[in-house]
């Protein structure tokens, strides 16, 4: 993205501009499949989605009739049912409290989740950068959670945080009993990881972090390994302490790759659905429901394709705004850092 411009394609065989006929055919043959696939299956659906979002497209006609008739400007067929053009879906967006909860949860996952993953990922990367016996073993082990299918990670997390059968629950009970015996008071420790609306979103973050901290670790470790030792040696000769080494050297040099890693993880986090689906199904209530989960529920459980498409656009707009702001800020940060360093 930021560095796009500095990767220059190699000059083609005919620099002078006189392409052979063969080449001018071939360059089209090589590129067109990818462009065609993306146009047909990515741009076209996006436009279509915009179209669907301004209709009352429903899976079954009866559900559409149940709601108050909206002013229509024409009609269209959708899945064999008549549907009307109307802006009802967009009028409903700002008043839908479940949607607002879903947006808030999604932003919570993006901000809290990525922060947790970055901090722990950076710590682990710096540890793995040290020299010690068994480094290869630890590097491999630390990568393992990332290899798990997200649905599987969800189940594993649910087994770990279950309030009855999990080792963690037993651990809490043991500590509770121990404290009871010690103090003579009734002490019961039981964190409702999955069943409490206030705690459950944090549990989702923990499970997702367990899986994706390795990603951060991996990228940041690659960044750390690119820093030459001489830089540190020179700073130490100048009398810098560990804190200064981190703040003045490690962190600034890691900044570009950190920003990229954070951007990639954030964009992935906007799409979070598998773990939530498996662990809580969006509950308790709608306290852990993400935006993608709500889109899925609206489309498949309620059959309201028009509204689901409109919400898909809300997500798209959120992602675009986030990416734009993030890129602008990171460009500024990197430039500042270059200016100082």
């Amino acid at each position, binding site marked *: 993205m930021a560095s796009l411009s500095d990767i220059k394609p190699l000059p083609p065989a005919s620099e002078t501009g006189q392409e052979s006929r063969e080449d001018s055919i071939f360059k089209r043959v090589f590129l067109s499949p990818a462009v065609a696939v993306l146009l047909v299956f990515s741009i076209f659906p996006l436009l279509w989605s915009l179209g669907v979002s301004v209709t009352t497209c429903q899976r079954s006609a009866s559900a559409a009739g149940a709601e108050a008739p909206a002013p229509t400007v024409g009609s269209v067929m959708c899945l064999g049912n008549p549907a009307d053009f109307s802006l009802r879906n967009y009028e409903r967006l700002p008043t839908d409290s479940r949607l607002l909860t879903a947006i808030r949860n999604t932003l919570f996952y993006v901000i809290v989740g990525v922060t947790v993953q970055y901090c722990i990922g950076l710590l682990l990367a710096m540890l793995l950068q040290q020299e010690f016996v068994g480094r290869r073993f*630890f590097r491999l082990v630390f990568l393992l959670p990332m290899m798990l299918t997200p649905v599987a990670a969800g189940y594993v997390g649910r087994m770990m945080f279950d309030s009855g059968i999990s080792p963690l629950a037993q651990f809490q009970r043991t500590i509770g009993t121990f404290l009871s015996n010690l103090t003579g008071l009734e002490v019961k420790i039981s964190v409702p990881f999955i069943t409490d609306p206030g705690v459950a979103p944090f549990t989702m973050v923990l499970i997702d972090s367990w899986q994706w901290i*390795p990603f951060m670790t991996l990228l940041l470790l690659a960044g750390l390994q690119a820093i030459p030792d001489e830089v540190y040696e020179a700073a130490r000769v100048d009398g810098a302490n560990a804190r200064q080494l981190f703040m003045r050297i490690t962190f600034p040099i890691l900044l570009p790759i950190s920003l990229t890693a954070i951007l990639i993880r954030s964009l992935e986090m906007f799409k979070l659905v598998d773990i939530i689906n498996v662990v809580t199904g969006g509950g308790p209530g709608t306290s852990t429901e993400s935006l993608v989960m709500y889109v899925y529920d609206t489309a498949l459980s309620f059959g309201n394709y028009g509204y689901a498409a409109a919400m898909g656009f809300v997500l798209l707009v959120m992602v675009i705004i986030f990416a734009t702001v993030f890129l602008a800020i990171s460009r500024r940060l990197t430039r500042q850092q270059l200016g100082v360093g």
Partner: protein
Amino acid sequence: MRKRSIPATIGLYVILLLWAFICLFPFYWMITTSFKRPLDVNRVPRYIPFVDYQPVTDHWEFLLVDEQAKTWRYFRNSLIAASASCVLSVIIGSMAGYGLSRFKYYWARLGWRNDNIAFWIISQRFLPPAAVVIPFILFFNFLRLIDTHIGLIMAYTVFNIPFAVWIMRDFFNSLPIDLEESARVDGASRWQAFLRIVLPLSAPGLVTVALFSFIFAWNEFLFALMLTNFDAITMPVYLAGMKSTKGIDWWYISALTLIMVAPVMLIGLFLQRYIVRGLAAGALKG
């Protein structure tokens, strides 16, 4: 490197072992759960086989013998969707990557050149699938592609192409052009030079792209959930569906999870360096 003090070394190992435990314990738990009798799962946690519970292989037998046809069907669906979309993304992605690396494009209407086209392609990767899933349902419904392998393969190929193009373009850019040119001087056509000279040399890049495409498709959940309902259901959707049946059969879920993650784990362990390279390339260049 400087010498560490002994307390620092101890601290280092304490954190490393703690984190290794956090990474490994869930795997251990999943493996042991798949060998526990339901009573050993549902009352209090049991930790060590043969010491506090007697392991049984009933659940594995149930999945691999009694329900073999069912298990194999979902596994096969995943395998078909993942490998076919992987092959397609590698072919289409490497062709486009080669084109963008070796030819000059100019699209007069938008004033787009190679870099604009490349940026447009990679930006597709960040499109949230939820924004396009509805038209996919309608479109596939129209084409009768709902609940078919072809439908899933097409959807996954679309999402894999941007990454494939990005990695392969980078790879071809780093490949010296002289070899192709000399082959061309010897009378080989563009196509022959691409097939005989360029592709064999770019095997590492192709492996990276193939791995990522396969793993993405193997793990994908949202599209598989939305676009299949019976015949073409993939492993993740089948597994996610198991929670809704009466109670949760943790032992079956654990065993099935292990069956599902086995291919990816094996790929990951043996081809780790390609995965690391792919992630690093995606992030460093992205």
